[in-house]
């Protein structure tokens, strides 16, 4: 019987052995063919077998202002490389290389040693930003030193002194955390991308696509045959809505003071200028920023990296009274209100002071108009009591407070607009009616950004047209780049025309001797606005702390428009530590004046200060005998303040 113990057919086993032998003979034949018969052919193929792949870096798109003037450019910079895929003795050549590139020979040798464990097709980056003669050295030594090569990198050139630094942003190598996010999925480590501001927001447009150049090289590193070349796709340029002339005026108006300025066209939401102080130098980030530098910037109490125009949320102070006034008039309460201001009042068992007592006087009889242009606290305390927090919150929210404006810049904050529901949700406590009183004059829990304030007050002055601010023109961008946002681009909020007139006429009295910003008066210009001065800490705390009064100075605010109704421009100024709204008003007035004078094509006195404006750009230089040289220079140059009727900033000569 055929069972378990029956052996497997020995014939078949032997057959398997012969099959295995056959297989091995087959393979041995293959080896013979390659290694004995055709050995020479392959040996020479091996000789020529190196394909060198050098990237061609794509230049990033320029950033321009609304009139096409260049704000951010690139300049070409050369990096020297040491290729290691040849049989050259690098240590022996190190001396000559070091000499030609002005490096230390020992350092070069150390670097070669340091990189020894890396694959040999990876070159070593010897030196960035090499000079003309160093470049010449590499070129002239192609034969003696074939292991040296250069690669062109494009460096970002930002305006100097932190001009427009927050709005523009800066670039850097994409980080590991970024690569893990879905938005950055298709980028590679080592890619240079925008890290903040416009550079980040519109990175997709600005960033080009690198190409590559392939060549076959032999064992000595000499190019034997040029293979294909994929050209780089340059990034596209981006046009902002910002007006360079106004930006200059705003930057100079704020000067070295801490705070922010936002100038916007309330008819369409175009941002005309945006400044934040203190500022930082984005050119520092173009090369890798050191850890020390970075921590210094991040840990600085004044927050130089913060774009205060959209990221600082602070109590608005009396500027909030415009919202209050709108609420009060629309609800039909404020029209008939007549209040006597004796310097303060008692509400919910507490005494609330009016600021006017600091000037040793009182407001006397106040109605809505006077309450606005004289900024009477008592009137608005009373109004707040009558309205109640929820009605105040309703109007404030209508005009965009407590929410993001939807501006196309990253990391905007939403500010805070308190209400009963807000308090319960966030603090699990009931809203106390007494807290409403402080909100009435823009203190307490309410917090806004300069952008929100500009937008809200611009909307009120426009008769209720609430726009979404933006720094680029959506019509000029491809559809897939427009940032998604929930905020509608325009909302019409109904305001009774009579109320509208009351508010705007009152606002126009503010920058006059009648109002709180008389020193900001602009002759011949229909300038209207509202001052504000907000405490940063409570009076009690100030009293307790040493130097409390000087350390915790009040912030000065001002929001101004021109003309008073359906304005063409709204300017919001935050002057940290400025104490009096007047000072903020003066700053805003400078910007408004620059705007009006530009409209009227007049030379402005603003820029004729002692400071010159420095802008970075790229240009061709002319040699002494007047012939144009073929080399591009990158660098910074000074704009001379013109005495004639020309725009304030000129594009660099020779650059479009």
């Amino acid at each position, binding site marked *: 019987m055929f069972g378990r113990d029956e052996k497997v057919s020995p014939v078949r086993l032997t057959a398997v052995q012969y099959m295995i032998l056959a297989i091995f003979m087959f393979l041995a034949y293959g080896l*013979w063919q390659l290694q004995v018969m055709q050995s020479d052919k392959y040996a020479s193929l091996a000789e020529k077998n190196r394909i060198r792949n050098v990237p061609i870096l794509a230049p990033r798109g320029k950033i321009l202002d609304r009139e096409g003037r260049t704000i951010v450019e690139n300049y070409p910079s050369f990096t020297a490389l040491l290729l290691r895929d040849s049989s050259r003795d690098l240590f022996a050549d190190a001396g000559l290389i070091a000499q030609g590139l002005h490096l230390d020979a020992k350092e070069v040798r150390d670097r070669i040693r340091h990189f020894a464990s890396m694959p040999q097709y990876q070159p070593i980056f010897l030196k960035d930003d090499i000079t003309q003669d160093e470049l010449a050295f590499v070129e002239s030594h192609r034969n003696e030193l074939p292991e040296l090569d250069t690669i062109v990198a494009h460096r970002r050139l930002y305006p100097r002194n932190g001009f427009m630094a927050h709005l523009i942003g800066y670039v850097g190598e994409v980080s590991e955390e970024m690569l893990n996010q879905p938005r950055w999925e298709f980028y590679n480590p080592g890619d240079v991308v925008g890290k903040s501001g416009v550079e980040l927001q519109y990175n997709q447009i600005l960033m080009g696509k690198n190409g590559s150049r392939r060549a076959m090289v032999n064992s000595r590193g000499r190019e034997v045959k040029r293979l294909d070349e994929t050209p780089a796709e340059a990034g596209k340029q981006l046009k902002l809505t910002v007006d360079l002339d106004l930006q200059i005026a705003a930057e100079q108006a704020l000067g070295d003071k801490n705070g922010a300025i936002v100038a916007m066209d309330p008819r369409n939401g175009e941002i005309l200028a945006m400044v934040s102080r203190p500022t930082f130098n984005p050119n520092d980030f173009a090369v890798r920023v050191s850890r020390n530098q970075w921590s210094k910037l991040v840990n600085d109490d004044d927050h130089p990296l913060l774009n205060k125009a959209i990221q600082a949320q602070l109590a608005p102070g009396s500027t909030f009274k415009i919202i209050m006034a709108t609420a009060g008039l629309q609800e039909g309460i404020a029209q008939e209100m007549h209040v006597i201001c004796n310097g303060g009042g008692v509400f919910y068992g507490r005494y609330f002071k009016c600021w006017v007592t600091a000037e040793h006087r009182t407001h006397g009889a106040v109605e809505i108009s006077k309450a606005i242009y004289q900024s009477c606290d008592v009137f608005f305390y009373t109004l707040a009591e009558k309205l109640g927090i929820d009605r105040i919150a309703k109007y404030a929210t209508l005009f965009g407070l407590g929410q993001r404006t939807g501006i196309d810049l990253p990391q905007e904050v939403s500010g805070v607009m308190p209400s009963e529901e807000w308090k319960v949700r966030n603090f699990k406590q009931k809203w106390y009616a007494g807290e409403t009183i402080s909100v009435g004059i823009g203190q307490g829990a309410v917090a806004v950004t300069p952008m929100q304030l500009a937008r809200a007050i611009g909307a009120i002055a426009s008769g209720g047209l609430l726009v979404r601010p933006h720094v680029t023109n959506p019509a000029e961008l491809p559809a897939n780049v427009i940032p998604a946002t929930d905020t509608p681009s325009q909302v019409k909020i109904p305001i009774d025309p009579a109320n509208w007139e009351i508010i705007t006429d009152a606002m126009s009295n503010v920058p006059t001797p009648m109002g709180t910003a008389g020193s900001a008066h602009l002759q011949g210009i229909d300038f209207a606005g509202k001052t504000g001065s907000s405490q940063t800490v409570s009076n009690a705390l100030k009293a307790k702390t040493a130097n409390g009064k000087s350390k915790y100075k009040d912030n000065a605010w001002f929001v101004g428009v021109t003309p008073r109704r359906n304005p063409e421009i709204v300017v919001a100024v935050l002057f940290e530590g400025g104490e009096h709204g007047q000072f903020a008003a003066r700053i805003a007035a400078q910007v408004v004046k620059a705007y009006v004078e530009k409209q009227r094509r007049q030379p402005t006195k603003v820029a004729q200060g002692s400071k010159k404006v420095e802008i970075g750009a790229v240009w061709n230089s002319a040699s002494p005998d007047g012939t144009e040289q073929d080399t591009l220079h990158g660098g910074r140059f000074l704009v001379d303040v013109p005495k004639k009727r020309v725009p304030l900033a000129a594009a660099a000569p020779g650059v479009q």
Partner: protein
Amino acid sequence: MSRYISFRDFDWLLFIFVLLLCGLGVLEIRSATAHTKFAGAHIKQLYWISGGIAGMFLMSFINYQKLLDGVHWMYIASIASLMTVLIFGQKYLGARRWIKMPGGGHFQPSEWVKLILILAVAKYFADLHQRELSWPDFIKAGAIVGIPMLLVLAQPDLGTALTYIPIAVMGLFLGGVRWKQALTVVVLAGLMMPLAFHVLKPYQRERLTSFMQPEADSQGSGYQVIQSLIAVGSGGLWGSSAGSQTHLAFLPVPQTDFIFAAFAEEHGFVGALTVMLLYFIVLMRLTQNAQTAPDRAGTFVVMGVVAVLSFHILVNVGMVVGFMPVTGIPLPLMSYGGSSVLFMFLALGIVMNVRMRRFVN
């Protein structure tokens, strides 16, 4: 049946040759990875080899007949583990091959399944009662191998799935497959080719086409083939002293699938042929163990190992010299990689097992 098992019966000769091959592999891995980011791989390979040797000794203690008795459970467990991979497996490089273990390691079932499959096929054929295969038996045999193969194909892992085929072929051949049955399979396979081509993923298709014409895509899939040919060819008779292709990293990842190319470049025709001879001796020795096995099952088990080993060598070396498309099948004992090393040593353990019990009755 337990009996005092003497270690004199352990196949020391086989063991020595196996170690020789492993040693050559380690040396070549060290040389090929010396200036790359894989440097130090040879140390890891040594750890795996030690682990493998330990496993081999352990394996040789268990009476293989007891293993065969339990093969039904092991088979079910292996199907279950393959299904687990499909459902829960981690995707890596586009395929689900691994399951993440709670301890943090990775478990690749398809290699274990190979081992169990050898045992399962052996048991199946050993228990048959005719000299020739009947059609139902033939189909059943096909299913035993076919089901795990399909599960592995679904991962997708074409390379490993293909390595199950020689087990089936060897089993069928020794088990008395009839000409007609063999012909049927060949014809069916031929008819399925066009369909299979459609089902293949693009990169797999590329591998086939670039196998036909490597120059057509010299920077893509054809690249590895060309690099391998150049490396091997430039080795000449005695080896190329610079070992430039490997050392300049034109052979990407030389320590795994293309280890033989690196070796052939460094040691030339003479070196390559020596390695081939060593493998041949190992295979012949294994076959001898099969012939002296105490029962049919033992023979089938050892020959199953022979089948897998021969297949790997054929495909891998064939790929290196340009006779076969690139498949990702490692060279046993020499290629860097824990699963391959472990599998080989465990399989050898079973072979030792059979050999050591050859006088038992």
